[in-house]
C-alpha cells in the first residue's frame, strides 16, 4: 500500500521540516505592498505532434469541429516556443496567512465542443469554481483525486442545458485528472494549490499576482513534463521575474 497514512513517519518528518522552514521564512517577510512574479515558460526542442481526435462516435461533438479537427491538448506550444496551460504556484516561502487566503473569483470549467475549456484549471484550496456545459450532448464529469489526499472524487452527469455544478477542493493536489466516461478522449486537470497562482497563456506568459514581499520557491507544473522550480525574491510592490524551460522529450 502506498497510501500516506500507512507510513506516517516520512509524512511526519516532512511536516516538521515544513513547519520549521515556514517559521524561518515567515520571520523574514517584511511588510510592504504586494508584488507580482512574471515570466515565460518555454519549450526547448521541437513541439511534439498532438494527435487528432476522432469524435465520430458522437456526431454532436464532431459537428463542432468540422472546419478544424480537434487535437489532443497535452502539450500546447505557441509560435514563439511558449507552452500554454502550465501552472505556476508558490511551493515554498509563503506565510500561513498568504497560503490560506482564498481568491473570490469563481473560475468556470466548461465542456465545449466535447473538450474541456480550459484544459487545465488552477484553483486555490477551498476556492469555489463552476463546472458548466455548453454542449448539446450529455457529459459526465468525473474528477479522480488520488486516495489519501483529502480530496474525494465524484461523478455527475450534465445533460444539455444542465445548471452549473458549484463546488471546491479541500486539499492541495497537483493535479487531479478529470474525465468524461461518455467521451473517452475528454481529459483535463484541476490543479489545487495554496496561495497565489497563474496559468500560462498561449504564448507561455504568466503573471502571479498578489504576492507579498519575500523569498519563494516557484514551481511550474506541466502535465507531461512534470515540474521545474525557481527561487524568486519579491520586493514590496515590485514585479519579480522567473522564466522556465522544459526540455522536449
Amino acid at each position: 500500500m502506498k497510501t500516506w497514512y500507512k507510513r506516517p513517519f516520512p509524512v511526519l518528518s516532512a511536516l516538521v521540516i515544513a513547519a520549521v522552514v515556514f517559521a524561518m521564512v515567515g520571520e523574514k517577510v517584511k511588510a510592504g505592498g504586494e508584488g507580482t512574479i512574471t515570466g515565460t515558460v518555454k519549450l526547448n526542442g521541437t513541439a511534439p505532434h498532438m494527435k487528432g481526435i476522432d469524435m465520430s462516435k458522437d456526431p454532436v461533438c464532431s459537428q463542432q469541429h468540422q472546419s478544424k479537427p480537434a487535437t489532443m491538448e497535452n502539450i500546447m506550444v505557441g509560435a514563439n516556443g511558449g507552452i500554454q496551460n502550465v501552472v505556476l504556484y508558490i511551493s515554498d516561502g509563503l506565510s500561513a496567512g498568504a497560503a490560506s487566503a482564498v481568491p473570490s473569483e469563481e473560475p468556470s470549467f466548461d465542456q465545449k465542443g466535447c473538450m474541456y475549456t480550459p484544459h487545465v484549471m488552477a484553483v486555490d484550496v477551498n476556492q469555489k469554481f463552476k463546472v458548466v456545459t455548453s454542449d448539446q450532448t450529455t457529459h459526465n464529469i468525473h474528477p479522480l483525486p488520488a486516495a489519501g489526499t483529502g480530496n474525494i472524487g465524484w461523478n455527475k452527469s450534465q445533460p444539455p442545458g444542465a445548471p452549473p455544478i458549484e463546488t471546491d477542493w479541500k486539499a492541495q493536489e497537483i493535479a487531479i485528472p478529470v474525465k468524461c466516461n461518455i467521451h473517452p478522449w475528454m481529459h483535463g486537470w484541476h490543479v489545487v494549490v495554496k496561495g497565489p497562482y497563474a496559468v500560462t497563456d498561449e504564448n507561455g506568459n504568466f503573471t502571479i499576482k498578489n504576492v507579498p514581499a519575500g523569498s519563494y520557491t516557484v514551481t511550474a507544473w506541466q502535465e507531461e513534463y512534470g515540474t521545474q522550480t525557481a527561487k524568486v525574491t519579491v520586493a514590496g510592490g515590485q514585479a519579480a521575474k522567473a522564466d522556465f524551460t522544459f526540455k522536449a522529450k
Partner: protein
Amino acid sequence: MNSRLLRLTNAAVIVGFLALPALVQAQISEYQEKQWLDTPAATSHIGNLTGNAHAATEPYRRYCTVCHGELGDGNGESAYWFDTPLFFKPRDFTTAVFKCRSTPTGTLPTDEDIYDSIGRGLDRSNMPPWNTFSAQMRADLVAWIKHYSPRWQTEKPGEPIVIPPEPEVTAERIKAGQDVFNRVQCWKCHGVEGRGNGPSASTLQDDQGRPILPYNFAEGGRFKCGTSDADLYKIFMTGLDGTPMPSFSDNIKPEEAWDLVFFLRTLQPFHTKAKELAKGLNLKPINPNAPPPSQ
C-alpha cells in the same frame, strides 16, 4: 571467518537493513489500523443493532480475507484470479469508495448501505451474498470494514437522498420515462434498448482503468445495489462510485425519476405491470441520430 563467508554475512546484513523499513512499515500500518479499531468510527448502527469491529476479527479473517485482503485493500490471495478484464476486483476498503449508496456521489455510504450489500452480494461479480450470517455478525462486519479507511475518522456519511413514495404506474408515466432516458442520454452507455451496447459502452473504464460494461437490462440480471423499485431509483440518483455510472440527481426531478424507473422496468425481461402497460404503448426505441432534444 573466511572472506567469502564475510561477504555473505555483509550481504545478509545489508539485505536485512534494507528490509527493515518494509517490516517497520507493515507494523505501522497494522498498528495504525489497530488504533482505528478502538475509535467510535469502528462501530455500526443498523436499526437497534450495534456492530462492534473487534467481534468481526475472526469472521472477517475466515470469510473475507481471501478476496478483500488482510489489510482491506482488495488484494487478498484470490484477488488476482479475478484480475482479468471484465472481472470486478474485490473492493479496496482503504479508500472507502462504495458502489451501493443511498447517499450522494462522493460521500460515504450509511451503515445500512454496507450492511445491505453484505447480505445481498454484488451480482455479476465474485462478491457472494452472506445472507446466512446473523444480523449481528453482519453489523459487526460493517464496523470492521469501517476501521480500514481514515475517511471514517474525519467524514460523516452523506445525507441519504429522499425518495418520495412510489406513484401508481401508468402508460403516460412510462412514456415520460422514455423521454427522460432520451433527454439525459442513459443510452450513450446503456444503448437505446438498454442492452448495454450504447456508442460509449466499449470504451468505458472504472476508476482503476479497468474495462467495465454498462448493465444490460435485456439480460435481466439482478442489480448489484438492490432489486426493488426504490433501489433502482437510488441507483441512478446516487451513481455507482468508482465506475463510469454517474449520479443524475441534479438533472432528474423526483417525479421524473419514478417515470424513468417505470420505463426501465419495461426493458427487463420480467413480468411487471409496467411491461404489461408498455405493450399497449408500442414504444419505439429512441433514435440516437435525431437532433438533440431541446430543453
